[in-house]
């Protein structure tokens, strides 16, 4: 059976708070309870439309880009990115920009240019939901990436293979789908693909304009050709399909799932947004296998918690919180991006997660509105408080044991009971899962 067959809600398998929460967490950065309840009422189609509306209908992500880079500070750019994720005007676009940042993992620690980093992220916002070959072509001309992978010293006299290797291994094809000779030839094609005055610059005199052969294609190839050739390979479809499945659905996708998604990608003209719409509406996406199968990254935890509580927190402070939890945007630990999953949850990191929520609820990370007490207003009985917190934080889906613990906390709580119970709910193991 096709794993990508559309999910059709039924009385036995309704589109409920669980499924709605799952969709909004995976295809965005979560949402408040009233918003989730509204989407459940409006149904699956409306929810899918909500996470991926036509781009023309939402504000451009780069309206404030010039102001964000004006300070020349990477911290400000980082805070701006967190602010965009908090706004989540186009959940899937924001989510995909996060995905592509991990995919083309480029770090300012080497690039040392906040402007270039901000512009790279803006490229993800602009092209991330479109065709992959266009995105890859743009990335091979991206000043930050060219610097990051040393292509600005790749010349016909002294070719540097760093970028060519990563194009094949990490960006487009994956290991085993190219030869060392392809890398050498692609590196030649990318010679002279340089940066000048902060912009892409094609240094003709440093470009090797001889014949090359990359992945079976011959000619006087250049960087644009490398992007087009790599993106057109059938292996590229499977490679990307696996990445998307790991990011959006499950950390260990099955072979038939990969094949199905790669097929959908080809069918939809290699358009990323269209392919992901199929994925997000599929039975696979809403399956029990996918639900709570991933660990929340610090960004999911921090940004998601603020969106969940409906908070108005300071993006600058959220950046700092994410950094202490091990995730610094625009500074991934390696070309491979963040390793994610269980690596996020060291014991110390979990402690810091708990403390982050404590700070948030106590108003130490910015002025929260509404405050916890208002969120749970009207609930006075401990069992009602516990149930409300479970709905707020955990889709109302907790094991009997966890519900019991939460109820005990609600019974014992004194002072700001709403904050105590909400904090406890965010400390449950279930809440650490995406």
């Amino acid at each position, binding site marked *: 059976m096709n794993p990508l067959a559309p999910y059709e809600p039924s009385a036995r398998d309704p589109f409920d708070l669980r499924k709605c929460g799952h969709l909004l967490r995976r295809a965005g950065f979560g949402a408040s309870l009233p918003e989730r309840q509204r989407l459940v009422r409006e149904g699956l189609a409306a929810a899918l439309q909500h996470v991926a509306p036509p781009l023309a209908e939402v504000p451009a992500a780069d309206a404030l880009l010039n102001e964000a880079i004006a300070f020349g500070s990477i911290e400000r750019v980082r805070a701006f990115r967190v602010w965009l994720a908090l706004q989540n005007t186009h959940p899937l676009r924001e989510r995909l920009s996060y995905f592509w940042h991990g995919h083309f*993992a480029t*770090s300012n*620690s*080497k690039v040392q240019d906040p402007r270039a980093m901000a512009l790279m992220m803006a490229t993800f916002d602009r092209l991330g939901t479109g065709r992959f070959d266009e995105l890859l072509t743009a990335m091979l001309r991206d000043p930050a990436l060219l610097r990051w992978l*040393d292509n600005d010293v790749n010349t016909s006299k002294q070719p540097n293979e760093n970028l060519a290797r990563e194009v094949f291994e990490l960006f487009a094809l994956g290991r085993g789908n190219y030869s060392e000779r392809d890398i050498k030839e692609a590196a030649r094609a990318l010679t002279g693909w340089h940066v000048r005055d902060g912009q892409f610059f094609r240094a003709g005199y440093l470009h090797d304009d001889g014949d090359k052969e990359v992945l079976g294609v011959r000619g006087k190839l250049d960087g644009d050709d490398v992007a087009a050739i790599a993106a057109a390979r059938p292996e590229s479809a499977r490679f990307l399909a696996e990445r998307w499945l790991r990011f959006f659905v499950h950390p260990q996708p099955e072979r038939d799932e990969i094949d199905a998604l790669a097929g959908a990608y080809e069918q939809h003209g290699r358009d990323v947004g269209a392919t992901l719409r199929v994925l997000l509406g599929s039975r696979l996406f809403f399956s029990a296998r996918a639900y*709570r*199968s991933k*660990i929340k990254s610090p960004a999911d935890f921090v940004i998601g918690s603020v969106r969940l509580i409906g908070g108005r927190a300071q993006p600058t402070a959220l950046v700092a919180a994410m950094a*202490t939890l*091990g995730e610094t945007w625009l500074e*991934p*630990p*390696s*070309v*491979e991006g963040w*390793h994610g999953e*269980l*690596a996020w*949850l*060291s*014991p*110390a*990191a*979990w*402690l*810091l997660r*708990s*403390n982050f929520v*404590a*700070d948030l*609820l*106590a108003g*130490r990370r910015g002025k929260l509105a509404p405050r*916890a007490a208002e969120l749970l207003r009207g609930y006075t009985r401990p069992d009602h408080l516990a149930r409300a917190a479970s709905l707020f934080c955990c889709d109302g889906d*907790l*094991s009997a*044991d*966890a519900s*019991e*613990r*939460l109820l*005990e*906390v609600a019974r*014992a*709580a004194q*002072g*700001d009971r709403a*904050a*105590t*119970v909400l*904090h*406890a709910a965010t*400390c*449950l*193991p*279930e809440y*650490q*899962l995406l």
Partner: protein
Amino acid sequence: MNVDRRTFLRGAACAPLALSLGRGGAWLPGGDERCLLVLELVGGNDGLNTVIPVDDADYARLRPKLGAVRRGARALGDGTSLHPSLARLHGHIAAGRGAVVHGVGYAPPDRSHFRSRDIWHVGDPAHQQVGATTTGWLGRAAEQLVAAAGGAGNGLPAAAIGGLEVPLLLHSRRVPVPSLVRVEDFQWLSPGARGPIAADAPSRHVVGAGGAGELLAAVRAAQTAGVELADGLTAALQRYTPKADYPDDDLGRHLQLIARLLVAGVGTRLLHTSFGGFDTHARQLPTHAGLLRQLDAGLGALLDDLAGHGCLDRVGVLVHSEFGRRAAENASQGSDHGAAGPVFVFGGGVQGGTFGQKPDLSRLVDGDVPPTCDFRRVYAELLGRLGVPVEPVLGEGFEPIGLW
């Protein structure tokens, strides 16, 4: 919440954990695991004016002005003497708690601060470009420690102290290493109070709760370990009373934080802190004397403090710099970037005194004291002391020196 209930919760949570963590109690207070502190002198410490070859006839010739420092220097017994500012550290060496290793470095020397620091941090002179996947030698050591503990531990096997950035030597691709300025960051917070410890923090109550499933079990294991870590640190804070007076400066504060972690035995076994200002191109004498005085006061206090708590035996301290300085002084009464230099190793059980070949100023290479001991042999020695296999961290062929 009363004690009985907490104990119950803890017990309930720990039962499945013992299996998954293996050495679940490794970070419990009073642990006897060996620890290492790397104290880095940034800027290129002038080795020849720190461990001074007073007997060498060429010393006075090469350093007509800077050589004044040998008056008042304290003999180490092999014809070298320690800078007059290092009185306390000299006492530790004399008492068999510290060693000097002469001529540590690598060849050919690199005179760039950045490049040479990278080489010391990565642990490989051949390493060309520091990139995103570059790991540091202590980071790799942390991976080994975690692997030996069955993939778990307290989650804080290593820490960088005093700065916001984690230095390259602690970079690891598998073990997240935080930088710590305050130990309070790892205490419980409750919504109500930012007290040092919130015994009734809700997070504590819910540990162990949850449904079935592998992933939830893994999360629970991390959470339970987090409870242990917080409790261990909390107990450590309560238990620790300084047994030495730390100077009221940044170095002193950082070293005292290190003492708190080490005395507690919370399982944080690899630590790094740095102390800068050693780039003495001009007017070196007062500057260098002031820096070494600060070093002596801070590190002297740490060693006394650890000894006072009876845990110096399980701690090793390495003091090194990215390079020494030229043998000949320059015309500005300073010295320029050089090559090899001495390193210090302190700790209980170290054979006190000097090791290796003392600098011979009649045989300079390119105006420098050439290295007589590869810096990775010192690393190998320290790794051996920690019980960490040397080869996966440094590669083959680095004989320990035999300091212990």
